[in-house]
């Protein structure tokens, strides 16, 4: 019995020795910080699952490297995310970490990346300034800035003949920046935003806010998040509003859409992704995600999937040496990929330049593309694509950055009350 153990030990020692002798790292360690408990638990799960889908499709290999993937929960509390980032860096010795959902977490994590010189790739937090006025060296975003596609929706709304619009945006940074982007896109064309209403983040009874929305407008732009997205259109319609409803990235994202009802039909929103993008690549992605996780693929999942793709590509370009962190991070920022969402490359401020899709919620009969999804579901059907939209819209970055970051009072509401 004892002898057997000795043999085993010796074998293990040999194996270890062999590994050490070879020198080159055999694995790349990746950490992911997502809200796995608390109100955003399921979104966090979608985020992690998107990454896992990529890893599983590639058998947890990136080139010759084995991927060691560690997911950590942060309860949607930024301070906890900081602690978990330290854990991933210090204990798990990750080469790169991703994570966060809401903007504050992004702002909290980027300094950690610089402190430990470990790249942080943002798969969701959309705070504008992270790729604008408060940049960090070890940071790159693979999702979107809050206002990015909203500019395009503003442009589109004017083209549709809307001239007077009221906005209803969740009262926090992501809301201000989304509404700001929309307002600039819309007013640059000549439209007028005549009222801005700011429901508290997490509002599910819009009773106090609905009377503040003027009824003599052509459309209402609503930027909602999570449970708000579900409650707002229902209460909006029930309160007798008949005008067109427009919305931001999270207002009808695929996390919330399957649980919406007919009140959402006709809702026009914008995002850098839609599960209804009609490309073979996206069909395969939606189908695989549905098969593996039993859920509609959302932009949260797509962001993570694309982030994994980016990491793999960057490692490939630098000969799969994850320890040369600075080198492969610089390479990563130069990559152009044909992602599920469409072509993507990063601008010199480390934010993606990508398609923005104007999408209309429709009930699509049957399972049109044999994706294995529930029949007669609601989809974000793409009705127009704005190709290669930058976070700076059609401004020069220098000019755009002269303005303060979008806020409750910027752009100022020049036409409010008219």
């Amino acid at each position, binding site marked *: 019995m004892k002898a057997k153990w000795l043999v085993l030990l010796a074998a293990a020692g040999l194996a270890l020795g062999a590994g050490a002798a070879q020198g080159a790292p055999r694995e790349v360690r990746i950490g992911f910080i997502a809200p796995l408990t608390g109100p955003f638990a399921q979104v966090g799960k979608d985020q992690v699952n998107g990454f896992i889908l990529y890893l599983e499709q590639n058998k947890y290999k990136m080139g010759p490297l084995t991927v060691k993937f560690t997911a950590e929960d942060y309860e949607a509390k*930024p*301070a906890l995310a900081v602690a978990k980032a330290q854990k991933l860096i210090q204990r798990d010795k990750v080469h790169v970490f991703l994570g966060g959902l809401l903007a504050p977490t992004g702002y909290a994590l980027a300094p950690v990346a610089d402190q430990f010189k470990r790249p942080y790739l943002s798969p969701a937090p959309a705070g504008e300034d992270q790729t604008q006025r408060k940049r960090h060296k070890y940071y790159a975003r693979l999702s979107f800035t809050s206002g990015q596609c909203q500019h395009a929706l503003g442009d589109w709304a004017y083209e549709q003949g809307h001239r007077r619009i009221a906005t209803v945006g969740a009262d*926090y940074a992501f809301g201000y920046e989304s509404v700001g982007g929309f307002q600039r896109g819309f007013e640059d064309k000549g439209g007028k935003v005549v009222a801005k209403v700011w429901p508290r983040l997490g509002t599910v009874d819009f009773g106090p806010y609905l009377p503040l929305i003027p009824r003599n407008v052509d459309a209402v732009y609503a930027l909602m998040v999570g449970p708000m997205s579900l409650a707002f259109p229902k209460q909006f319609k029930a309160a007798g509003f008949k005008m067109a409803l427009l919305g931001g990235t999270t207002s009808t994202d695929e996390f919330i859409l399957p649980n919406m009802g007919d009140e959402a039909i006709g809702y026009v929103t914008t995002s850098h992704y839609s599960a209804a993008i009609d490309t073979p690549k996206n069909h395969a992605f939606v189908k695989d995600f549905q098969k593996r996780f039993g859920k509609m693929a959302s932009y949260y999942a797509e962001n993570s999937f694309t982030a994994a793709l980016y990491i793999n590509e960057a490692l490939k370009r630098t000969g799969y040496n994850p320890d040369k962190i600075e080198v492969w991070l610089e390479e990563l920022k130069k990559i152009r990929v044909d992602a599920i969402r469409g072509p993507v490359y990063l601008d010199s401020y480390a934010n993606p330049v990508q398609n923005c899709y104007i999408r209309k919620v429709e009930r699509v009969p049957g399972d049109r593309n044999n994706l294995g999804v529930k029949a007669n579901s609601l989809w974000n059907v793409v009705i127009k694509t704005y190709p290669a939209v930058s976070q700076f819209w059609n401004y020069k970055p220098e000019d755009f950055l002269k303005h303060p970051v979008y806020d409750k009072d910027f752009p100022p509401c020049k036409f409010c009350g008219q």
Partner: protein
Amino acid sequence: MSRLSSELKQVFWVIAAFGALGAVTPFFDDYTQTIITRALVFAIMAMSLDILMGYTGLRSMGHGVYFAFGAYSTAILVTKVKGVGLLTLFGAGLGLSFLVAAFLGFLAIRAVGVYFLMITLSFSMVVWGLAYRWHTVTGGDNGIAGILPPPLFGISLQNPVAFFYFTLGVFLICLGLLYLLVKSPFGKTLVGIREGEARMKMLGYNTWLHKYLAFVISGTFAGISGVLWAMLNRFIAPTDVELVTSVEALLMVALGGPATLVGPAIGAAIVMFLRYWVSTFIERWYLILGATYIITILYAREGILGKVEGLLAWRKAGREAGAAIPRVQKQPEEIRT
């Protein structure tokens, strides 16, 4: 004489335990070090609450308030004022939490039992609302990032080990001061009020004033933990100061053993290890956290330290036949109003 020597023995063991902690911590990995530092920070919070809850018998659900003022004052000073020193930070944090506690004490002390719990709960909600909505000062839900600790006598505290020793030092000072407080005649009066306020009144004590002072002292010490927390995380957001923070402080005291000072510190350590260590293994760790709450109350009402002490005293009582009476944590009767 024998009581004094047993007390000295206790003090000796506590000092030895923290000396050992100070000696071994640098040998842990960085993440474990920061968990220990976090535990020490919350230990200060829990000990300060113990003055109010364990010794005076006032159960507060608003201890997060002073934590919040300590943390936010530090965050704002560090990010807005160039070259601000540690002394200023602690001065501001302590001063502010002192003032806030002095004000809220006036409103709260009259309430008893569950009404005290309710009014302190509403303080928690107000301060959380302020942190969340007063965007221009607190940064709203974006919080405040980049709170780098300033150096101490030229030694950088940005190194985790240095910050650990600094926190340990602050913790030991707080522990020492609070220990002197509970051993002082004033501390005895607080226990007297807990055991029977009417009797203390009859003996001529101004119980309102004593309770008020306990409230203010307790709040001021909680401010210290806020100051440290902001520098440790280098980040502060409203989620750090929500109601759950105050409830968790209650748990720490109950878990470790009320009216023992060291007990709540141990309680803080246990909760921090659950949150930062167990959660890395178990995704549904809230189930464990919830169970901890329930099991603590059902099976260790006198807290872990109380339980251990009870066992020791019981054994000793067997030997010395009645020389030592097991210390039973007596819960004051709810005052029906």
